[in-house]
């Protein structure tokens, strides 16, 4: 469905060349649900915009839904659906009108477009809103309308750029219910970008982690986390016990790190089967005379995957950008 080779995009800003995407190779098979995960500015959206013909390539090649983005952009456009980061529906237009015009933009006749619009309005719970102006819709309603716009011409491949950014958890869950149901019904290939870890973790069958314009990991979320081998364990101790405690942690775990904490010093480590390991560990620390004031164990998340790959937390990047 998607094949790219050395896909590259540079931007020139104030005589400085920014390498937004640096030679990415991607292969996506029909029916896959793939998420591009990465911090803001990693190159996710730039990649998506090249694949959807919205942005010219600096170099490399991409074949999307059987058409080459450089040689046959119109062919790509007619076979893909695209739900962008911003509102796809024009604010001054009426809900149903926008869907019908969208169908006509993809070469459907007015009758077919009207029938398809009504079908999507029903399946996306938008029927009561058909005559409303888009600007009067709530954020969640607008996003469902954007999804309907992307699906008007029944594309075999749908791109979603940050589909649920800015939505509350309830609306996000609702949007995903719709996306997954439509996918189950039509077998649509889905490619999305997200900087939400839990979204990539819960929804995507395959996660491509992008950082600084390159793909640094490509696997299922489960495998990515399993590769880290081990759970995350944390104990908070008095600063005077750091030496002793580090030695004990290093015996059964790895990646021992320390960080200042409100209660003293927080030591973290990766340990196999953390929930069983933690009581034994606490016992040994106690036997060595180390007073533990707090303890915690957590299963790895994609953030841990990102942290181990880059040494940075994805969460921090998101916070800074938000």
């Amino acid at each position, binding site marked *: 469905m998607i094949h790219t080779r050395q896909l590259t995009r540079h931007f020139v800003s104030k005589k400085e060349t920014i390498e937004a995407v640096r030679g990415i190779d991607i292969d996506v098979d029909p029916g896959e649900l793939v998420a591009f995960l990465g911090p803001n500015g990693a190159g996710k959206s730039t990649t998506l915009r090249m694949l959807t013909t919205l942005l010219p390539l600096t170099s490399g090649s991409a074949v999307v839904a059987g058409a080459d983005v450089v040689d046959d952009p*119109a062919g790509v456009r007619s076979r893909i659906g695209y739900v962008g980061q911003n509102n796809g529906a024009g604010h001054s237009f*009426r809900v149903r009108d926008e869907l019908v015009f969208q169908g*006509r933009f993809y070469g459907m006749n007015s009758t077919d477009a009207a029938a398809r619009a009504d079908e999507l309005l029903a399946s996306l719970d938008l029927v009561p809103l058909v005559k409303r102006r888009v600007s009067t819709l709530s954020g969640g309603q607008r996003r469902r309308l954007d999804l309907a716009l992307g699906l008007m011409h029944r594309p075999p491949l749908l791109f979603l750029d940050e589909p649920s950014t800015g939505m509350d958890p309830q609306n996000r869950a609702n949007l995903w219910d719709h996306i997954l149901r439509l996918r189950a019904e039509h077998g649509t290939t889905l490619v999305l970008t997200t900087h939400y870890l839990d979204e990539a973790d819960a929804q995507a069958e395959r996660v491509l982690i992008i950082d600084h314009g390159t793909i640094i990991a490509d696997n299922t979320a489960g495998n990515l986390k399993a590769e880290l081998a081990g759970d995350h364990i944390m104990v908070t101790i008095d600063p005077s016990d750091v030496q002793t405690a580090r030695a004990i942690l290093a015996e059964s775990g790895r990646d021992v790190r320390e960080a200042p904490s409100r209660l003293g010093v927080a030591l973290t480590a990766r340990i196999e089967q953390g929930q069983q390991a933690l009581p034994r560990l606490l016992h040994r620390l106690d036997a060595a005379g180390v007073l533990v004031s707090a303890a915690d164990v957590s299963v790895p998340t994609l953030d841990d995957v990102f942290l181990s790959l880059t040494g940075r937390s994805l969460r921090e990047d998101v916070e800074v950008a938000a």
Partner: protein
Amino acid sequence: MTSLVADTRSVFSREMSLILRDPFSLIFSIVQPLVFLALFGPLLAGSVDPAVLGGASPLQWFVPGVIVMICLFGTSTAGANLLFEISLGSYERVLASPIRRSSILIGRSLKELAPLVVQASLITLVAIPFGFTLYPVHALAGALLLGVFGIGMGAFSNALAIASRKREWMFWAVQQSLLFPLLILSGMMLPLEAGPRWMQIASRFNPLTYIVDAERALFSGTFADRSVPLAILAALITCAVGLWIGVRQVARSTT
């Protein structure tokens, strides 16, 4: 594969839905040129030597000028709507569809020209009882000429909107600072014959001058004026160059 005509019609229909779903907006745009005609017309008749106007009713001279003016105002601001859609994201959605890039520009310009047909007809009809003579075939030819010119102006305006998408104030700054020199130096509102020599020379470099002259010739019932072929040329060049620049801008508009 859709045709250029079908694509243009789709874009045009979408834009027109804004007017058709809210016809009230059209009422204001119709009244505006009438007010202009009623307030400016008598002033012009009183302050300009009738010989300069060719001896006929001042309306015969003034009505085509007003029609060119509303065409210029309407199409030169076309980009403002595009700018709004660019800032929201719906324009990007349209770009992701297989619709022809030239159709986006032509369809949008035609939408600005559609109310013009209603406005121009109304002004013309209202002016008849006050001594204006209507030559329907010539007027229709004049409307077609303006249509070609207007598509080009609309394309320029949309190109300007795309160029200023990251600094929206720039659109209005450029549009306003070009609009009034073009307008005044075309003799649209006041005859340039009454002005200094340098203005008359400058007007010869303004494509709009030829359009205005030709519209006046047509509205006074003659095709045999040297301004007519020149105006056709000026309109075609404006249209071709406008679309060429416009399509190039559209291709760059998502970078």
